[in-house]
């Protein structure tokens, strides 16, 4: 019984927070400031609690399993939701449904936790649904804006479609292997055409969620229409969670057919990097721009996944952590500007430096890190991804990825140039930065600088992945 509480600690905390929020909602009226302070405190507790009393093991017949690596992944996600919550302070302060917003976000986080911990396709699917359906409602949280409703509609329809593909794949796998547990599937999966077909459907479902290129069409519209907080949540947290599962599913469950999925990933990553980059160059809206930039980033992550299992897992988790800091730094500034002025066009950012030097620097550092300019962490992240990909000896893929990194400098630095150098008679006026977003932005900048320089982090993740390769599947 104590095992139950310790192993499911993180999920239980989230559930308790959801219920606290429900109780507050039912209780007497509270001001938004009080609510936001309370929620941010709870999220901080949730993040801090992830570091204590960790134990590895399984529960409920392998439906739920946890390892140090999984705990680390969950901690990364908890950190992300804390930063996003701090950043969206100025937007939520004037919103009428603060608690509902957090209930939705936390239930998606709960879904992601269960998804990451799942040892069974049924649990995995349920976690995935729990992590997408409430997000569609959250995407609609700019209740007056038509674009927001459009984004929610597109998100729910495309995710329903991808869930359909995923379920079809799962049912074919169940039909051919007769089991839903990951361990059982690994022993039964072969190069049988039907199983390969099922795997392709499963891959398509995954690809939808992380917006890999042939399945990316929903991304830009949804990112543009949703409130900035939800956009950053979609681009960092939900993508990160699916990537964590994707990596572990590929390397463990579908290990027997790794030569097949290697070729698929190779093609997908080349397409994703090139098309994400080409479309990012053309964007004028900064949220659409960040959407395509995130597509291109996923392409680089796929390059890392094509590598061998341990290096691949390490580099992907390390990169997601860096990507979280850098993308949230960029989105944090965009969110402040959007909440105060409603401006989301890249041209509006011209000469931003003259009025808001601090925000300009944060945005610039975030963009430098996304591009992968050496002193920032983004460089190390991409370096390790490419190194992992190079382990397979496919230098064609690495060359294409490296060339595209150079292309990506162009569009990231174009924005930096607009901020610092372009003349503009009416730059965005000086913005007051409230305390919480300021803390969040400093956290991001510190993260960008330190994650790259403190080599202990990479080594730590690397040591955990070594264990993760063997432990969770010894059980049966």
């Amino acid at each position, binding site marked *: 019984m104590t095992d139950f509480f310790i192993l499911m600690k993180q999920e239980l905390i989230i559930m308790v927070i959801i219920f606290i929020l429900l109780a507050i909602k039912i209780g007497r009226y509270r001001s938004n400031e009080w609510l936001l302070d309370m929620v941010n405190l709870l999220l901080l507790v949730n993040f801090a609690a992830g570091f204590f009393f960790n134990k590895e093991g399984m529960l409920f017949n392998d439906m739920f399993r946890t390892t140090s690596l999984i705990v680390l992944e969950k901690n990364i996600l908890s950190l992300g939701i804390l930063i996003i919550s701090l950043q969206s302070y100025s937007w939520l302060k004037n919103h009428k449904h603060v608690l*509902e917003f957090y209930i939705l976000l936390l239930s998606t986080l709960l879904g992601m936790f269960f998804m990451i911990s799942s040892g069974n396709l049924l*649990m995995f699917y349920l976690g995935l*649904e*729990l992590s997408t*359906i409430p997000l569609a409602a959250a995407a*609609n949280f700019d209740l007056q804006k038509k674009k927001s409703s459009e984004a*929610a509609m597109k998100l729910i329809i495309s995710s329903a479609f991808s869930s359909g593909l995923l379920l079809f794949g799962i049912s074919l796998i169940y039909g*051919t292997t007769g089991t839903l547990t990951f361990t059982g599937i690994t022993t039964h999966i072969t190069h049988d055409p*039907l199983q390969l077909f099922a795997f392709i459907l499963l891959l398509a479902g995954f690809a939808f969620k992380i917006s890999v290129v042939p399945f990316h069409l929903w991304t830009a519209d949804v990112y543009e229409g949703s409130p900035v907080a939800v956009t950053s949540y979609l681009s960092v947290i939900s993508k990160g969670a699916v990537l964590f599962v994707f990596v572990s599913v590929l390397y463990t469950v579908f290990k027997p057919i790794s030569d097949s999925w290697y070729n698929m990933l190779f093609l997908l990553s080349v397409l994703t990097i090139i098309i994400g980059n080409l479309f990012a160059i053309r964007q004028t809206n900064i949220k659409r721009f960040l959407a395509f930039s995130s597509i291109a980033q996923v392409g680089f992550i796929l390059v890392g996944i094509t590598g061998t299992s341990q290096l691949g897992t390490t580099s992907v988790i390390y990169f997601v952590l860096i990507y979280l800091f850098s993308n949230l730094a960029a989105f944090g500034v965009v969110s402040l500007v959007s909440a105060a002025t409603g401006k989301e066009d890249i041209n509006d950012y011209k000469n931003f430096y003259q009025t808001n030097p601090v925000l300009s620097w944060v945005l610039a550092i975030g963009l430098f890190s996304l591009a992968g300019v050496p002193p920032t962490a983004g460089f190390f992240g991409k370096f390790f991804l490419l190194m992992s990909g190079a382990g397979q000896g496919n230098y064609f893929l690495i060359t294409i990825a490296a060339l595209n990194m150079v292309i990506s400098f162009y569009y990231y630095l174009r924005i930096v140039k607009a901020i610092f150098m372009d003349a503009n008679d009416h730059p965005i006026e000086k913005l007051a930065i409230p305390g919480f977003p300021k803390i969040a932005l400093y956290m991001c900048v510190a993260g960008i600088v330190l994650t790259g320089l403190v080599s202990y982090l990479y080594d730590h993740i690397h040591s955990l992945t070594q264990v993760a390769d063997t432990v969770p599947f010894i059980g049966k």
Partner: protein
Amino acid sequence: MSITVVLFWFLTALALLSAIMVLLSKNPVHSVLWLIVVFFAISGHYILLNAQFLAIVNLIVYAGAIMVLFLFVIMLMNLNAETEPQKNTWLKLAGAISGGSLLLILVSVIRSATDMTGRTAQVGEGNIGLISNLGKALFSEYVVPFEISSVLFLSAMVGAVVIGKKD
């Protein structure tokens, strides 16, 4: 030919035919009605497999509730044969080619699947689909997913209420 075999082929033909009619009918209301026939035929298949609970739920939820919702929406949007958008020929051609290749792959993949050759569905036997067994599995082996889906419903409800509010 035993009665189950006759029933099986009859239901299969009915399901396929009405599924095709869903696509072919110009009037959206007719499409929905044909879809209800599809659901009935599939429920018949479930009964043949001795999965009574699934059959009843399929009827109540899909043929009953969801299809009524569809009809409501179609009637509120005032769709009919005249407002049906005309797709251009290239689009139709592309759809036919991609759908056709998917069908081709599915058929060949299922024919070559080693697990499936020489196997037939277990008709009229097995008691996995009976309500008591399903309930036992749901509350013992699958209790975690069952409990988690309650959180899903809670958040879906919260989301729906927020979206539905006017202010």
